[in-house]
């Protein structure tokens, strides 16, 4: 197959008022995104927010109902074949063939993406080396740990050197060690100038990897910016006051409201977003003392993306950084079944 190299100026990924319904369920309700070339863009949101649907449309797996999506200036609906040649996808579930070895999985991907046999083999060995899979390369992937499978999945997505990479929840289901390893690999790819769109439920992950973040909820972008910009929308500091019981917390919330937006968290704690942390802290402690409300804990901290999410959507993201997500096969089958049922 011959290829020409058409230069493309402008954003690597562009999405304009994208909509998608599955029956009566609105998955995407007008998403707009623009991802400059060579940057990492994070789509952050809970399960069912529309992250995966967006990725599936951008990778030509799904057709949108309305709006436009372009990758390197190519319309995903009109030129799907050209789009596919420019992208790599590592999905939510490591889609490697368990009965094939790592080397064979890479060979298959090289073959299907139309690489000449010799250069595909060299590329495969290079990726095995880089992803620390050389020792296991002759073993069938079914014997791999979760982290190894995810690394192989990522390697498979990179065989044809795509300029744009989509990672759908790349570290879901990995232990902290596996997550850290994958983050380092992703950072290396980015350093080489790849454009990357990643979806995640982990605020910590978006904070660490993404240049810009869009917070997605119910098929819409509810906020977009860099991690510091999103944090700045909250005021600069959070004061966290732990109280003895829910009644005390409810009273404290009313008292602390004048300092800034105040929320009850976990039943007995109150979080207040304030501008001037040190001053507000002093006043809050004095006020509580005057009202005979004795706090069990008082903490002052910088806002996290979890706080951003809470403020923007009125609830916490489902999985926070350290929580073990539901990755057993049953949950997986149920989710896939539910998706299909919706479609």
């Amino acid at each position, binding site marked *: 197959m011959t290829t020409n190299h058409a230069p493309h100026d402008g954003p690597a990924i562009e999405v304009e008022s994208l909509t998608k319904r599955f029956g009566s369920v609105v998955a995407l309700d007008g998403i707009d995104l623009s991802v400059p070339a060579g940057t990492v863009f994070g789509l952050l949101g809970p399960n069912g927010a529309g992250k995966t649907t967006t990725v599936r449309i951008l990778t030509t797996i799904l057709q949108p109902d309305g709006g436009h999506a372009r990758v390197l200036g190519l319309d995903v609906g009109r030129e799907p074949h050209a789009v596919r040649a420019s992208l790599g996808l590592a999905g939510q579930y490591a889609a490697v063939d368990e009965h094939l070895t790592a080397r064979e999985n890479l060979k298959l991907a090289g073959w299907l993406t139309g690489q000449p046999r010799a250069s595909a083999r060299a590329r495969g060995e290079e990726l095995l080396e880089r992803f620390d899979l050389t020792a296991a390369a002759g073993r069938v992937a079914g014997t791999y740990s979760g982290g190894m499978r995810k690394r192989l999945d990522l390697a498979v997505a990179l065989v044809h050197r795509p300029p744009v990479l989509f990672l759908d929840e790349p570290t879901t289901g990995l232990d902290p060690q596996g997550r850290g390893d994958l983050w380092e690999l992703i950072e290396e790819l980015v350093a080489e*100038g790849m454009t990357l769109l990643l979806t995640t439920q982990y605020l910590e992950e978006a904070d660490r990897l993404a240049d810009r973040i869009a917070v997605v909820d119910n098929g819409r972008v509810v906020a977009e910016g860099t991690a510091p910009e999103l944090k700045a929308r909250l005021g600069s500091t959070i004061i966290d006051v732990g109280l003895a019981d829910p009644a005390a917390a409810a009273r404290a919330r009313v008292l602390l409201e004048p300092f800034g937006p105040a929320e009850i968290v976990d039943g007995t704690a109150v979080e207040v977003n304030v501008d001037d942390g040190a001053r507000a802290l002093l006043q809050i402690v004095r006020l509580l003392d005057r009202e005979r409300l004795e706090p069990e804990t008082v903490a002052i901290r910088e806002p996290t993306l979890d706080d951003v999410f809470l403020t923007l959507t009125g609830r916490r993201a489902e999985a926070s950084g350290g929580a073990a997500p539901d990755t057993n096969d049953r949950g997986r089958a149920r989710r896939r079944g539910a998706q299909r049922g919706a479609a």
Partner: protein
Amino acid sequence: MTTTTFPATVPVTTERSSLVKAASDTMAITWRNLLMLRRVPQLLVFSTIQPVLFVLMFRYVFGGAIRVPGVRYVDYLMPGIFAQTVAFGSINTGVGLAQDLGTGLIERFRSLPMARSAVLAGRTAADVVRNVLVVALMVSVGFIVGFRVHTNAAGLLAAVGLMLLFGFALSWVFALIGLATANPESAQAAAFPLLAPLVFASSAFVPLKSMPGWLQVLAAHQPVTITVDAVRALVLGGPTLRPVVQMVAWAVGLIAVFAPLAVSRYRRAA
């Protein structure tokens, strides 16, 4: 905003090169499916144990009670066994596709710059290769229990060719079922009630004349009977043209209906 200029790989495909790519993609998928057969040989072993048991049962247990005029029962039986083996083996196509859907592999294939038809064509092609092994094994088993070809080697080869065509046609039916159910267990479960009446209400094990009149009419015109009759004509003798033409027409008809349905289902699947 940084605007970097970078090369976009835009493949320029012509009719001819896209055909070559489709053939190459189909070969890649076939290779992958055959590797799986080598990695999990149990699949092949277990799918041949059942027909071997049938051979032993009908040859040595029921065979004595079944009278077929003008032919030894073992010679009558074996073409039926071949058809049964190939028919039940074609369930594999559906189960394999349902598995690939479940693991997300098909989703990945759909994001690759490969021919849309290749996943199905590569699967059915690999199942033809698999059937070559299975039919060869069953012919050998037949020879061991006393089956003899009355015509010649060319007749036997033509009969094997018909069996492979029959399996290929049924593979497309089960490809559709596998994609529609999207679950290996369901694909397996859906196949049995479909195949069992076709295989047992046919001339595979007993002459149609022993069945009630209404069943004879149904049994005489269904593809398993027609395939078995064509194979018998080829290996035992008798007029071959009419049964072979009928059988090929059935196979082509099944493929013409089910291949487009399966491909369209594949486009919407995942």
